[in-house]
């Protein structure tokens, strides 16, 4: 009988052995609890890093935002439909298909990260934390302003066109899962953006901070925002402070082409780092989207090439240094429509990393500041405007410098197109300044039925629709749909 007893005891022991209280508390090994993830300055820095990482996503600066501004701005065209993201070019948008809602979704996710960080820092500060959160908080505020600025330009009419129309929901703290926020006006968004930038400005460091935001990036954002609001003096003040600080310097004509092979060059005010093991999109990177079809990879299918309008503009001076980053495309061996800014150089040299597709994204660089200064000054001092413009215009050495007599807004815009080609500016500039946009559909003979060959900002598809998915989950916002969608 003892054997039986002892067996029963063994069995019961086996059965009950793992029965302790913690047994049902299994925690993840690669994530932490959201509610307790920001307790210290170090935690806050980790979350700030997360925000920068988020901005490198393919649906934001990593790719789509740049292509949005360029494909829609007429500086790019496509040689054949169906290769990817061609809906941006053809304006094939509706709430149910081709809504490109990833802009809305991805940027609001980034805004959540910024809101979460700002709110938690404020909580820690209120609780009397000794740590110096200034710089982190300043960056989070500046990042939030940047995100709202991009979002309101994609979904709202230009401030200069109709600032009382719908912008985007103005959200400043993490929301409940079931919240159904509604849109603010464009003006309200801009006010928030200015308010964030102003609050952040004194908190930020003035030193160069590779891959992150600093005081000058904040000023650059102010210049951009004020230009959109047509507050030219304020824009000029911000731009001039950057230029005059001497922290950044323009590339010389000799340096210009090579500048794309390097990271964090002397012009870079805000540059997002793309590393091979991080945000490198490989075969779906900007590098692949913009290079010649078949170049080094049969996955390169030449989604977008420079339009003849752009090439003709740059062709005003065959010796313009900026030809150096272009190469021939699939149209012919003389059609220089393949762009290599995101490949380092025209031989896919990259910018010093192991893959040519992991090239940093220059979000704000000094050349743009000069051109913004020129535009801002144009309204008060054409001579000063010409001075700023010529600093960039001289990259086309055979062109005559602008003078107070010859300078025009179009001349500044053309220069901006030449200089900042594929850098995410063109479409927004044309909308802001109410210019016509003409598309080079005839180059590839692509049949486009979803927009006219030439459009301007009165065309309803110059802003994206609120997607049906958003409306399904947030029905009231359906009443605030952009007109005509």
């Amino acid at each position: 009988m003892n054997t039986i007893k002892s067996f029963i005891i063994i069995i019961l022991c086996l059965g009950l052995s793992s029965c302790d209280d913690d047994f049902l508390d299994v925690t993840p090994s690669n994530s932490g609890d959201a509610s307790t993830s920001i307790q210290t300055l170090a935690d806050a820095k980790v979350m700030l890093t997360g925000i920068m990482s988020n901005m490198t996503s393919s649906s934001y600066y990593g790719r789509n935002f740049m292509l949005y501004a360029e494909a829609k701005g007429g500086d790019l065209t496509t040689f054949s439909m169906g290769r990817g993201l061609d809906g941006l070019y053809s304006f094939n948008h509706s709430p149910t298909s081709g809504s490109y809602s990833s802009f809305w979704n991805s940027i609001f996710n980034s805004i959540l990260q910024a809101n979460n960080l700002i709110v938690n820092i404020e909580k820690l500060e209120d609780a009397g934390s000794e740590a110096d959160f200034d710089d982190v908080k300043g960056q989070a505020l500046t990042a939030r302003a940047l995100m709202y600025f991009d979002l309101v330009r994609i979904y709202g009419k230009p401030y200069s066109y109709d600032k009382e129309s719908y912008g985007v929901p103005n959200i400043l703290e993490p929301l409940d899962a079931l919240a159904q926020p509604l849109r603010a006006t464009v003006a309200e968004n801009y006010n928030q953006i200015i308010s964030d930038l102003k609050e952040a400005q004194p908190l930020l460091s003035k030193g160069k901070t590779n891959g992150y935001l600093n005081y000058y990036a904040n000023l650059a954002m102010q210049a951009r925002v004020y230009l959109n609001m047509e507050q030219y003096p304020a824009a000029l003040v911000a731009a001039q402070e950057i230029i005059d600080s001497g922290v950044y310097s323009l590339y010389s004509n000799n340096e210009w082409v090579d500048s794309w092979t390097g990271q964090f060059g002397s012009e870079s005010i805000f540059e997002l780092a793309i590393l091979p093991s991080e945000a490198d999109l490989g075969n779906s990177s900007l590098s692949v989207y913009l290079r010649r079809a078949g170049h080094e990879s049969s996955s390169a299918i030449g989604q977008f090439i420079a339009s003849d309008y752009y090439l003709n503009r740059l062709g005003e001076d065959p010796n313009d240094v900026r030809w150096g980053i272009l190469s021939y495309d699939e149209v012919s061996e003389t059609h220089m429509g393949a762009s290599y800014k995101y490949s380092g150089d025209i031989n896919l040299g990259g910018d010093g990393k192991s893959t040519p597709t992991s090239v940093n994204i220059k979000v704000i660089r000094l050349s743009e500041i000069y051109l913004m200064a020129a535009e801002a000054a144009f309204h008060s001092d054409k001579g000063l405007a010409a001075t700023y413009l010529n600093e960039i215009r001289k990259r086309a050495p055979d062109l005559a410098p602008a003078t107070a007599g010859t300078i025009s807004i179009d001349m500044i815009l053309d220069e901006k197109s030449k200089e900042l080609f594929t850098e995410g500016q063109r479409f927004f500039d044309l909308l802001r300044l109410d210019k016509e946009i003409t598309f080079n559909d005839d180059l590839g003979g692509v049949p486009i039925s979803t927009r006219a060959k030439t459009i301007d900002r009165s065309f309803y598809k110059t802003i994206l629709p609120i997607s049906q998915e958003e409306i399904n989950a947030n029905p009231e916002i359906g009443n605030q749909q952009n007109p005509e969608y």
Partner: protein
Amino acid sequence: MKVKLTGFLTLLMLFLAQLSFAQGKVVTGTVTDDKQLPLPGVNILVQGTSRGVVTDFDGKYSLEVAEGQTLQFTSVGFEDQLIKVGASNRIDVSLRESATALDEVFVVAYGTATKESYTGSASVVKSSDIKDVPTASFQDALAGKAAGVNVTKGSGQVGSSTSIQIRGIGSMNASTQPLYVIDGVPVSSGNSGQLSDQIVVTNNIMNTLNPSDIESISILKDAAASSLYGSRAANGVVMITTKRGKKGEPRITIKSSTGFSPSWATDNYEPASTQENVDYLYRVFHDYNTSSGKSEAVANADALRRLNVKFNKHGYYFETNGTGVGESLMIKGMTDGLVNREGQYYDWEDAYFRTAVNQSQDISVSGASEKTNYYSSFSYSKDEGRVKINGNERISGRVNLEQKIGKYIEFSAKVNVAQTELTGFNDSRNLSSNYYEQTRNLLWGLYHPTNYKTGEPWTARYGSLAQNNVYYDNEWENSSTTLRVSAIEGLKVNILPELNVQTLFSYDNIETKDHLYYSRLHYNGQGLGTVDEMSTNSRRIVSSTTLNYSKDFGSHNLGFLAGYEVEKNQTDYIRASGKDLPSSNLHTVATAGDTDASAYYWGNNMMSILSRLEYSFDKRYYISGSFRRDGSSKLGPDSRWGNFWSVGASWNISKEAFLENVDAISNLSLRASYGVNGTLPPSNFGWRSLTGYSAKYMETAGGVLSNVADESLSWETNYSTDVALEFGLFKNRLYGTIEYFTRDSKDLLQSVPISRVTGFSSTLKNIGSIRNKGLELSLGGDIIRANDITWSASVNASFVDSKVLELSEGADIIWVNDSDATAQYIYREGESTLAFYGYEYAGVDPENGMSRYYVNDSENPQAGDFLLNGRGATYDYNDANYTIIGDGIPDVYGGLNTEFKYKGVSLGLDFIYKIGGKLYDGAEKDVSDDGYYWERIRSQYAYDDMWTEQNPNGSLPKVRGTDLTDAIQKSGRHIYDASFLRLKNIRLNYDLPASLIKPIGFDNIRLYVIGTNLLTFSKYTNADPEVGRYAARGWETPFMKNYTFGIELSL
């Protein structure tokens, strides 16, 4: 020492027994079946008393009786036998098998049951029903074998996962798959490893179980059957029992088979000829020009130019006689290369596909003695897919051992070791790497794997997307090697004849190592060469202890079970990746210039108590109840414990006096059950709001909020009702079951769409409910039952109605089935759980060849550009509204199985069928493109059915060069009737006459041939009508026809 001790104890017990019942004597003996194999579990009752014993697993018993008393031997599946005790102290009994199917013993949750006594709903599939079918996993062989069980496969790739849905679709976001239990222990199922994230291929973990090792499969369908598995049982339970030995001489069985798959089971979008496709593309280009007002001559010239641009480089140029749109083109060969390809078109089908070969070798040794029962096997099998790089290999070994220790203790060990190695290819609509799609849609006969000018391999893309995989096949490789070691140790102590304690301890370790390599020449190699090694190691430890009690009190029987179970799951994941590989011979991370790694783990734990009470009276009335309480780490502290229960009853009407004399009725019983069970969330940490740290930036860790969660998240609850009538007529020559069920799944985990302004698109909530109800019929019988000839047949049919009852806020949910969005569906209250959603197609206008759509304006049914059949219609789908355009759930599905035997020859036919319900052909948008993508080839049917001036009754629209996107819309154009009948297996079996083989020492020699998927009848003929669980066809690999030849030797 131990033996002595046990022997001593036994003697002591006997001595004690002797003392207390001094008037009798002890009778011992062995109970066997008519083949002299021992029968465990036989009830032996001293008639007129309540005293009795049960035989042990060797069929032995010992009982104290007095001379002259009568012993009653009863065992389910056998005829009762009465024996009067005489002078002898030994009574060996051989029981005859009874004919009634009702008496068969089968495995159920935490025990065994017979049809007669069981109050739940279970289907039993025996090894003989599925043997010889050449499938890697037993799951595939279950198709059509049991009512209410829907077996589907997402892909015809060998080694891929199988879906089993029992009684409809019970969930939207959590699993709809049953719980699998092998030899009493819950195991994991589905895909193993991480390769499915990189290339769309699944690695079915069930492939590690050798189908030849399976003795029987019980499929538990209702709550009374499955509630003992509580929070995981809502979708039913599949219980697998592996083989054990039979008493007698060791039995050696050797089985070997080889098979071939020379073709697909059906036509699959067979392309039109090269000539026809050139004419088609010319038509598109021509129309592009004339549509913008150009003359025919200009259009002809431009179309020829475009064709020349496209195909000159492959060695062809084109001419026409006239300039019209309907020209038949002359395809000429360029003469400036190494070869003139005129009239020579490359056969890509032949280049990518092969006659696949499958083979398997099994050897098993089994036997049993007084104290020991063993079964061991070793097997090797290799299956090839028709696509040249798809294959699956398995080596497995098993040892099942049962050992009696002394008189009261039984020990068992079941150990299985298996290794599988799978190689696959992208099964999605991945245009550059889905070989099957390419042959149907992208690779023209005008493309060749070599350059006609140089003879070098062609490495650029063909058109924008297709790749020359004849070349690239040598530039990449993938494999998933899975090693599974599982051990189940059991210990049973028979404390009293009617009471025992049993414990099972199981350790199951599954390690899948995935390897994916692309050379620097491969288009996915980023110009550098990449290699990924991923190791996923899942360990599951289960400990379960149960107390079992069962005793007869006269005509009353009482059974009781109480148990405790703990389960721990942990998965460790390690990935190492390398980029920049210096040598094409070295495919290792070690040689890479740039390396990257990740490792972490996840898991979940569960704790449960369980119990069951059973009572029966006079073998006429049975009732049972079960209760289980589960605690799971997948849920938050306040909601992690849940109670699950069931009640059931059955009434054996045929044993009632009023039916006793009705000869026609051999069995008639009615049973009913009701109960509650559940489904846990699929995610381990779904209730936690988390910050993830994968947002690495500039080599620094970055944190991001990764979800917004509901802490009170709970399991889904399933309320099942079941009523069934089972009958056997004319001495069970005709038998069957009629069964009705309802299954209400409530508190469904729904990924509730939320405003994206929150930063996320959805959050998990317990909202929503689904009702599945249906009727299951099965009918079987022996049509001929003669000495030499038998012919038996059985048919089963499942009628299931599956509807969404309730959704969050009543809001529709639109969803797609896979990453390709092959089809689009809607969950809408009151509608089917598999409702296709899109534009309602109204066919082609015979006047002009344009597609027409019904507008479906809910406010004005006549809104539209014109009226068609009294309804508003339009040519522009943009003006139409999405609506429900079909139901993917069949009206009825099931199987038809028949077997004909004559002496040693038998012929079996297994059909599966599906009647009603629609399928959505998501690949059709590619093969019947209206001219949107200027590089696709068209299928023959799509070419033949295309509207032209000459063919105004064509069912497909006129091909245009004007950017028509009609074909790629989700619309009724791609909806087809999904009904089909398929001869799944045909089996011819021949047992060599005993007179021939006994002299040479064999017990049996069996030769067989089995053909799979040989015949298919369906209305839908464009591709295979047997679709996966979402009733959609995309670019997944089709099924193959297979012919397998085998031999089995027993000695």
